[in-house]
């Protein structure tokens, strides 16, 4: 592995920001002292196991929990019938018809996907709970199954939710610019009949889990979980459980990966809350791997139909239009937000001015989808990258040159896209150059010949992606104008305690992103101490008073929302420290310098107070302080609110996210002509996420995202049979790449600080799509020398590549070029 030098940083930074200091989290994690949800134990707790539907679609005729309750050590059960009495259906984000979907913690009357929880059983041991679940008798009447989203709106399609009147959850038309003009100006129109983005997820090492306690005196639940977006979980759970949000205390410390998959565990958490109250004991649930695969958090599968691209003869891209068909699975747990999130990156990295997307989302008898690393933008960016490569191949243009011709240029930044989003900064061409250099693109022709001599086909591919971070939640109103969400927020507190300890609390729920370390770096630089002097409380507790409606760790926003909240609170604390020191040392606040853990008179270095003295004065020795110190608490709380307006809902126009990181990936693949097996022989990922607080942490996330992407491109797929049975429900059939599968990854970086954020940072870590795009691109390039197949699927295992080698005409038939 190698790393290119970071280019010149344009913003001033403190001593620690920009340095890969030792991570605060690592000691406890490396010593096995982390506290994950399955590590938590309580006296007399019961273990929960869910009875799950073997059918993808069936009516529940009867449930008999009697045989389970007869077993010694079984504490109790919960059925959908009980849930329907004790709770209301979860709030639906969708406008009608999706708004009419009724979703409960357990199946009520009907099951809609194989693996759906039907009954919860609680017992003295995990094993007994599992055994007891096996003897619960559920009588089903199977119903016809809908697996293919393309058939969801057929007259004869089975209907999942009768209340919704069909399988449509949401549809909307996005149109910006003047498509008629674009196609009239075009020299060529490239048409692609169908593209398919496959269903997978960025599987976390740790499955979902929780330990829930109910306090009968205060009627409050404490939910120790690995849910990564407690703010969202609370607003889903509270109304359903008919309780105020302060009755739900969310606690987490270490989380073993999230990637968006752990946002939508609220149904299971409600079931646990009901059980803890019913059985008067803490209940613990750790999800099994097969259960996770069968029922939690798949990424959105999406089809693109009737793609038409208006192009000038020189490769200038004018516009495109298409129909997008999204498969949400059986329930709308975070959906249909995927129907708008993609619009954050509408033109991709390109200067398309005219875009129309007719978006439709349907429900099928598959596991519900949820955000997944690169949520919804990954699918759309895959479309734009596929368009680029297909247009390039059809018009015989160089894939590099057509990208450079159409990339938005650095001097156009901040750049307003056709739909009103503002790309803050970046240098896409430079990133591409670095990536190509890293993979030795100038030697590809010679390597192609060498590979050919060995019976291999060699191809070079490029994947250009944007990681849009810090959502403006008002975009949800494109989906449902009645929603009262907008903007975003995050909270941090920073205090100076009696013995001079600097203590930080965050509203976020880190899952390995090193929040403790980077928060300490920002605080240390702001108040003038070492990062070792800063204690950042591990994890999340919604009772810490550092919690707001959008608190959590998701959607590439900690470096912006989380660290800006930290910066704001640290600025407030520093101001108070200067004012207090000024009073004590007889000067003005401007005359105080904070550095080295001391508050010092600028004009007299001998006049200084250690931070410990400041903490002691306010907290324990405050008699006689003058009135102007009344508001000094040395305990600062700051809520960061990104500068957003509410977009134009009717025109679907406005700024949807605050920052845009760039990832340009490039790879070289070799394909075995006999088997279709793809080997990545060279790989480079170039990342530009603005100011990097901790380069090593950034690079770690780039590596992880790349592994997820390569897995999705070649091995990982949630494949269902016609009966709605998931055939890849374990790590035997669902192959997540391990170290030996991964090619050596070369990384490069530049820094284009965001002009919109206090630290110049941008959200990052979701650039995994770049890997899918560049592997698809490279496969198509390699196949150009063997029949010229067109890659139309995001997932290309050996058998699919082999088919493309055998019958390239079949894939080429979906592409048509017309001259105008």
């Amino acid at each position: 592995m190698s790393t290119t030098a970071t280019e010149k940083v344009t913003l001033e930074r403190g001593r620690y920001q920009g340095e890969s200091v030792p991570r605060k989290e690592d000691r406890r994690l490396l010593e096995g002292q982390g506290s994950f949800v399955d590590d938590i134990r309580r006296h007399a707790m019961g273990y929960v196991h869910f009875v799950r539907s073997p059918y993808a679609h069936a009516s529940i005729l009867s449930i008999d929990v009697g045989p389970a309750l007869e077993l010694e050590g079984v504490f109790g059960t919960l059925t959908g019938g009980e849930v329907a009495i004790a709770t209301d259906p979860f709030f639906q984000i969708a406008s009608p018809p999706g708004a009419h979907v009724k979703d409960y913690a357990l199946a009520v009357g009907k099951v809609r996907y194989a693996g759906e929880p039907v009954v919860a059983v609680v017992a003295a041991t995990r094993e007994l709970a599992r055994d007891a679940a096996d003897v619960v008798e559920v009588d089903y009447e199977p119903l016809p199954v809908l697996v293919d989203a393309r058939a969801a709106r057929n007259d004869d399609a089975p209907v999942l939710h009768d209340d919704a009147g069909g399988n449509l959850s949401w549809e909307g038309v996005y149109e910006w610019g003047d498509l008629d003009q674009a196609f009239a100006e075009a020299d060529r129109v490239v048409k692609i009949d169908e593209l398919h983005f496959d269903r997978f997820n960025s599987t976390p090492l740790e499955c979902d889990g929780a330990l829930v306690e109910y306090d009968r005196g205060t009627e409050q639940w404490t939910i120790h979980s690995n849910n990564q977006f407690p703010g969202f979980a609370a607003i889903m759970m509270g109304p359903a459980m008919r309780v105020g949000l302060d009755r739900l205390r969310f606690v987490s410390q270490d989380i073993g990966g999230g990637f968006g998959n752990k946002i939508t565990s609220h149904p299971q958490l409600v079931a646990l809350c009901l059980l803890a109250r019913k059985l008067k004991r803490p209940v613990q649930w750790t999800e099994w791997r097969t259960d996770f695969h069968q029922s939690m958090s798949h990424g959105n599968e999406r089809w693109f139909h009737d793609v038409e691209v208006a192009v000038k003869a020189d490769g200038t891209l004018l516009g495109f239009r298409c129909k997008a068909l999204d498969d949400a699975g059986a329930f709308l747990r975070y959906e249909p937000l995927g129907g708008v999130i993609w619009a954050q990156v509408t033109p991709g990295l390109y200067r398309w001015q005219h875009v129309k997307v007719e978006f439709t989302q349907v429900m099928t008898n598959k596991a519900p989808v949820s955000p997944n690393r690169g949520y919804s933008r990954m699918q759309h960016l895959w479309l734009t990258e596929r368009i680029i490569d297909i247009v390039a191949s059809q018009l015989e243009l160089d894939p590099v040159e057509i990208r450079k011709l159409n990339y938005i240029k650095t001097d156009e930044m901040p750049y307003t896209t056709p739909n009103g989003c503002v790309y803050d900064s970046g240098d896409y061409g430079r990133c591409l150059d670095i990536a190509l250099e890293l993979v030795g693109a100038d030697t590809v022709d010679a390597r192609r010949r060498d590979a050919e001599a060995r019976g291999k086909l060699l191809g070079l591919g490029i994947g250009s992606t944007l990681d849009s971070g810090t959502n403006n939640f008002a975009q949800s109103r494109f989906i449902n104008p009645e929603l009262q969400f907008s903007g975003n927020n995050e909270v941090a507190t920073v205090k100076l305690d009696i013995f001079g300890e600097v203590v930080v609390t965050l509203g976020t729920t880190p899952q390995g992103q090193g929040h403790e370390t980077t928060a300490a770096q920002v605080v240390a630089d702001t108040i003038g101490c070492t990062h070792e002097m800063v204690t950042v409380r591990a994890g999340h507790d919604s009772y810490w008073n550092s919690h707001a409606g959008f608190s959590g760790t998701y959607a590439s926003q900690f470096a912006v929302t989380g660290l800006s909240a930290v910066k704001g609170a640290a600025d407030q604390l520093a101001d108070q420290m200067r004012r207090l020191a000024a009073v004590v040392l007889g000067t003005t606040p401007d005359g105080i310098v904070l550095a080295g853990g001391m508050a010092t008179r600028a004009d007299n270095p001998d006049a200084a107070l250690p931070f410990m003295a400041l903490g002691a004065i306010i907290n324990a020795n405050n008699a006689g302080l003058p009135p102007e110190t009344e508001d000094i608490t040395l305990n600062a709380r700051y809520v960061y609110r990104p500068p957003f307006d509410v977009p134009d809902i009717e025109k679907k126009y406005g700024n949807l996210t605050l920052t845009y990181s760039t990832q340009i990936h490039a790879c070289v693949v070799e394909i075995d002509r006999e088997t279709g097996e793809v080997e990545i022989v060279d790989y480079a990922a170039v990342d530009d996420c603005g100011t990097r607080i901790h380069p090593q942490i950034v690079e770690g996330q780039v590596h992880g995202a790349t592994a997820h992407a390569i897995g999705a491109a070649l091995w990982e797929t949630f494949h269902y049979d016609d009966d709605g049975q998931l055939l890849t429900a374990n790590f035997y059939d669902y192959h997540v790449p391990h170290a030996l599968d991964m090619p050596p990854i070369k990384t490069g970086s530049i820094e284009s600080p965001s002009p919109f954020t206090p630290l110049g940072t941008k959200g990052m870590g979701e650039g995994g799509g770049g890997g899918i795009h560049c592997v698809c691109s490279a496969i198509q390039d390699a196949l150009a020398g063997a029949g010229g197949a067109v890659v139309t699927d995001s997932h290309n295992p050996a058998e699919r590549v082999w088919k493309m080698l055998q019958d390239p005409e079949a894939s080429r038939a979906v592409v048509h070029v017309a001259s105008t």
Partner: protein
Amino acid sequence: MKVSGTRDFDAAPQAVWDVLNDPSELAGLLPGVEHFEIQDERNWTATVKVPLGLGGLKLKFSFEKTEEQPIERAELSANGKGIGAVISMDTAFDLAPNGDGTSMDWAADVRVLGQIGAMGQRVLQPIVNQQVEQVLAALDERVQARAAG
């Protein structure tokens, strides 16, 4: 999953047919049968222990003869329920004279639902193949016995 094949017997079609259409004979063909009960001439139930890896999966099956064209064709459907698994199966047998013997084309569509189904076809296919082979071997044996009188 769909499995099919052809099996030749050294016996006339009537002998094969008699075995296939005698529920008590059929019970003897199925491996792992622990209990077999005839409801009527078209419906039977059985408790079967299917070998699966290190353990066995006990299933309660109900069988129904769905089509019958004497000594030429029969169709049978079966539905089984067990812990963590639901299995349904549609089978068809077509008999034709083959010299002095009989040629039988057979086909089965086996659907495995639930946790066991989630194991994937790579694991289940060999198990199904093994079970089918055992059934056919037992059938051959019973046909020979019946033909021998």
